[in-house]
């Protein structure tokens, strides 16, 4: 294979880019995912009061501002050595469960389901939410919009505005909710539980009962054996807002449980010459290149990673679905990348059930939602599960609370090595020597990447309102043979 060097200028176009290199024989030699990098955020934060960071970090990206807000607030709590009162923690978690519902509904219906309901090779003009709604019915489309709006409205009431929340501050929350709010949340949560149930039924009827799709999900080209990391509660159940990080190996055995502030003892970063982004790996296993299995330090975060890393779900109906998923897919852990979608729906169910539990909690309307910080600020780490996986914020400040250091590891960074490998495996499995590569085939390569729900913090709100993605197929001299642009 020709030496690969990709002009740095092409890295900065704001595109997500998949480069597929063929060898002299015309087979896939290797594939690379490039993610545009935003610059200067750490510098932007330096010198600012740490209590402003939960509001500033919501501007990191248009996709999960709520996750950044919560991770940042938790890091700021830690910087000030302050423990929020129970009602504040519950309110944050309630808000956060609404965020999970909002995000998971969008990903499943707009991004994942079209590939299965319409078929991965179907006409791209139909293979989207419009085609999906045309096929499953307008009423279901209306339910999708309605339940996303419910989740959004709950976030808006607690968060102060629909996106870019301003509610969490060091030591707790800036305002409590009223009994009227609580009643409203309870009704919406009930409806979200029903909608989650319905979504899993839809998945069962349209995807699982189709042998071809089940074979696709469990097939080799979309399977990758890795370590998994996720946040768990004291009983090792999945938790999105709080807990400790648990790591399991490719056989599903617990390797370690560690507190968020110990993350640097477990995660190191590898640098490659062809991308600005670093590749996180497990320090104790080591970086062994882009390889699968127990000897490789590559790990994954995601809905499926959370389920693999935990012993179950903390709510009854989600637990039933959890058991069903593992039973159908042959036990724990599951390594099928396309099963991320199924795991996402199990999590949607849990998020809705937990939302309902919290909306019925007697303490949720307590006015005691803040502990005023009194300690001298210094350093802190905050971790939450973003919809797409573990999100770590780490801050240092001077004694006045002015930021001197910011370090963040976002879910897409944790998954960067694994995403490259998943894409490469799909490309090698799908693109055959001398055979034409129709759009549908490239879509199937892209499916390996889309399952991760990657959050690239780039042009999401530039017109035309989506992240452009480019897939290039190059020959052994690096000449482009085919390009797919979105």
């Amino acid at each position: 294979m020709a030496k690969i060097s990709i002009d740095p200028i092409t890295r900065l176009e704001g595109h997500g880019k998949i480069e597929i290199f063929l060898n002299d024989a015309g087979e896939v030699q290797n594939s690379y995912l490039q993610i545009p990098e935003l610059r200067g955020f750490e510098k932007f934060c330096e010198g600012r009061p740490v209590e402003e960071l939960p509001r500033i970090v919501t501007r990191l990206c248009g996709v999960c501002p709520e996750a950044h807000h919560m991770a940042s607030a938790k890091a700021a709590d830690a910087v000030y050595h302050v423990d929020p009162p129970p009602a504040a923690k519950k309110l944050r978690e309630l808000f956060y469960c609404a965020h999970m519902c909002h995000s998971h509904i969008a990903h499943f219906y707009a991004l994942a389901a079209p590939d299965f309901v319409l078929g991965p090779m179907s006409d791209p003009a139909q293979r989207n939410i419009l085609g999906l709604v045309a096929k499953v019915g307008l009423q279901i489309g209306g339910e999708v919009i309605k339940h996303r709006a419910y989740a959004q409205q709950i976030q808006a009431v607690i968060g102060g505005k629909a996106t870019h929340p301003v509610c969490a501050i060091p030591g707790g929350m800036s305002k409590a909710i009223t009994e009227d709010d609580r009643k409203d949340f309870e009704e919406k949560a009930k409806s979200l539980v029903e909608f989650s149930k319905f979504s899993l039924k839809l998945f069962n009827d349209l995807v699982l009962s189709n042998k071809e799709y089940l074979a696709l999900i469990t097939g080799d080209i979309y399977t990758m054996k890795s370590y998994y990391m996720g946040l768990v509660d004291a009983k090792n159940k999945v938790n999105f807002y709080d807990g400790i990080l648990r790591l399991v190996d490719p056989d599903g055995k617990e390797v370690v449980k560690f507190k968020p502030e110990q993350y640097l003892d477990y995660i190191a970063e590898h640098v490659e010459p062809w991308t600005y982004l670093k590749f996180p790996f497990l320090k104790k296993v080591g970086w062994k290149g882009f390889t699968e299995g127990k000897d490789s330090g590559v790990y994954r975060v995601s809905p499926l990673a959370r389920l693999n890393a935990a012993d179950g779900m903390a709510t009854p109906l989600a637990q039933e679905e959890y058991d069903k998923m593992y039973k159908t897919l042959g036990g724990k852990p599951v390594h099928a990348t396309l099963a991320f979608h199924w795991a996402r729906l199990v999590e949607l169910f849990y998020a809705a059930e937990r939302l309902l539990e919290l909306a019925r909690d007697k303490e949720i309307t307590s006015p005691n939602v803040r502990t005023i910080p009194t300690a001298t600020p210094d350093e802190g780490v905050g971790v939450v599960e973003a919809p797409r996986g573990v999100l770590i914020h780490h801050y240092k400040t001077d004694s006045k609370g002015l930021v001197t250091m910011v370090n963040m590891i976002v879910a897409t960074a944790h998954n960067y090595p694994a995403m490259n490998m998943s894409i490469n495996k799909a490309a090698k499995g799908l693109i055959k020597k001398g055979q034409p590569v129709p759009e549908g085939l490239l879509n199937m390569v892209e499916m390996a990447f889309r399952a991760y729900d990657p959050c690239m913090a780039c042009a999401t709100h530039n017109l035309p309102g989506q992240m452009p993605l480019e897939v290039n197929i190059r020959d052994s001299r690096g000449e482009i043979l085919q390009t797919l642009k979105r």
Partner: protein
Amino acid sequence: MKTLVLGLGNPILCDDGVGCRIAAALQQKIDNPDIDIREESLAGLDLLELLSVYDRAIIIDAIQTGKGRPGRLYRLGPEALAQTRHAASPHDVNLATALELGEQLKLKLPREIIIFAIEVEDVTTFREECTPAVLKAIPKCVEVVISELQKPLYQSLPLTKGD
């Protein structure tokens, strides 16, 4: 008739925030109960929810065509975005798809949507200022939006022709 003037973008990501800056400037100049002016960083389905209570929407955002000089202003209709409707975004659908979904689901959508897009230079550096050429274009964009608002529905200016 309710009109939404919506500035989109990230106010701390250099030129990406130009839409928000224009909306903020308009806020200072317009005082009309029938016109809501908002700054948001939304896309796709969230945008659909926001738009679905208005009769008319004017959306102001950054654009990178890679062809125009920074600061150039384009006046576009939603159909100009139709070629990008495939749901290929890893996060959300694009605006054209979201609007089409709104029609499919018979949501109440604005009868007219006009998009003002400003050609930008830097959308990858975190800073509060725009680049000079984009900054210079803001007052003109503000004036253009104000004159758009004074026109009756469906009698507005022609759209920018595609390059």
